[in-house]
């Protein structure tokens, strides 16, 4: 009887919380640029292009845009790292036991096809570290967590842009290295944050 009552209460609570979830979220500002560029390029409809290829039409027409994204990335993640370090007053934070070494930015792959496998590995490691970070939120100041998440958003923006550019120019080694470096930056930030949360 008590269990039934508890389940009913939890079920009702779940329904209430679900009903209160936001139905709308603002997408990244650059999301339309990719779509708009593609439909411009499509010209006449019916061309047999895949949606994945569509991202090739990203706004990366101008190298200066890439440079700007890089600067934002470095500035953002550096600020977060500084905040994390300042909080714990440790100049060189230890890495987590599960953390894997960050590789150099020199790419070992030469095209988008080869990079796909490596990207999956990045995604797996990022996913694991984010889980660790979230489980350790309570051990870091809210200000620090906010700064880290803000930086992650900047990095994600850079990743999106780089992927779009790479789809358009799959053999561009510089873009591959840029994308790898961006993923490494994200991993590094997450590794430092999780290390701080555990120390």
């Amino acid at each position, binding site marked *: 009887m008590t269990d039934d009552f508890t389940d009913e209460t939890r079920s009702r*609570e779940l329904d209430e919380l679900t009903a209160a*979830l936001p139905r*709308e979220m603002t997408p990244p500002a650059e999301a339309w640029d990719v779509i708009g560029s*593609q439909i411009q390029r499509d010209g006449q409809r019916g061309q047999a292009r895949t949606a994945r290829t569509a991202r090739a039409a990203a706004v990366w027409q101008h190298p200066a845009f890439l440079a700007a994204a890089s600067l934002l990335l470095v500035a953002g993640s550096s600020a977060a790292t500084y905040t994390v370090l300042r909080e714990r007053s440790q100049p060189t934070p230890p890495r987590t036991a599960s953390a894997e070494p960050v590789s150099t930015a020199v790419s070992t792959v030469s095209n988008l096809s080869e990079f796909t496998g490596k990207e999956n590995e990045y995604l797996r490691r990022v996913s694991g570290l984010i889980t660790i970070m979230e489980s350790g939120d309570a051990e870091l100041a809210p200000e620090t967590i906010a700064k880290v998440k803000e930086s992650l*958003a900047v990095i994600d923006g850079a990743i999106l842009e780089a992927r779009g550019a790479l789809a358009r120019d799959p053999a561009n080694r510089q873009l591959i290295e840029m994308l790898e470096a961006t993923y490494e930056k994200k991993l590094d930030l997450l590794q430092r944050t999780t290390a701080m949360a555990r120390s």
Partner: protein
Amino acid sequence: MPTPAARYDSSVHLTADGEADTPDLVELARGGDDRAFEQLYKAHSPRLFALCMRLAGGDRVAATTLLQDAFIAAWRGLPHFRGDAPFTSWLHRLAVNAMLQNARADKRRSARVLFMDDAAIPASESRQERPDIGMDLETAIARLPLGARTAFVLHHIEGYQHNEIADQLGIAVGTVKAQVHRARGLLMASLSR
């Protein structure tokens, strides 16, 4: 205050609740009017992005990719859109299709987000075996196995019936019900911590 659609074209009608009259914009876009399509994007992208975020388990990069795939597919598919279903429902279907295609296209990634075969999800990913505390509902939903998460999001948040979800995903109605039930159980367990 006029909606973006109204600013773009004074002939665009507004409904009683102030929303842009999508059918007019759809017709314009169907005729190749990319400005009309951009207005459709502005009107529908926040709602669709929320769906994409939840389908992607909170991964903003993946969610943005789904959103882009869905709208590009919509642009290309507009000549075949007959208007039998609301434009919003059609967009939702395209987003779900994009998710399924991405998962199937990349086996390694699909291992992470494999669809209805939740038996393949490692037990350690079950909420009942994770020590996390203080999770909010959004986070708890993001951590559900993909099959359960998709069924829960489409049914409880987006309001689709079980048979509509089954049709959309190409699975049995019973499977949808089981996934929704499983999702509720996992979420209630996480909320009780």
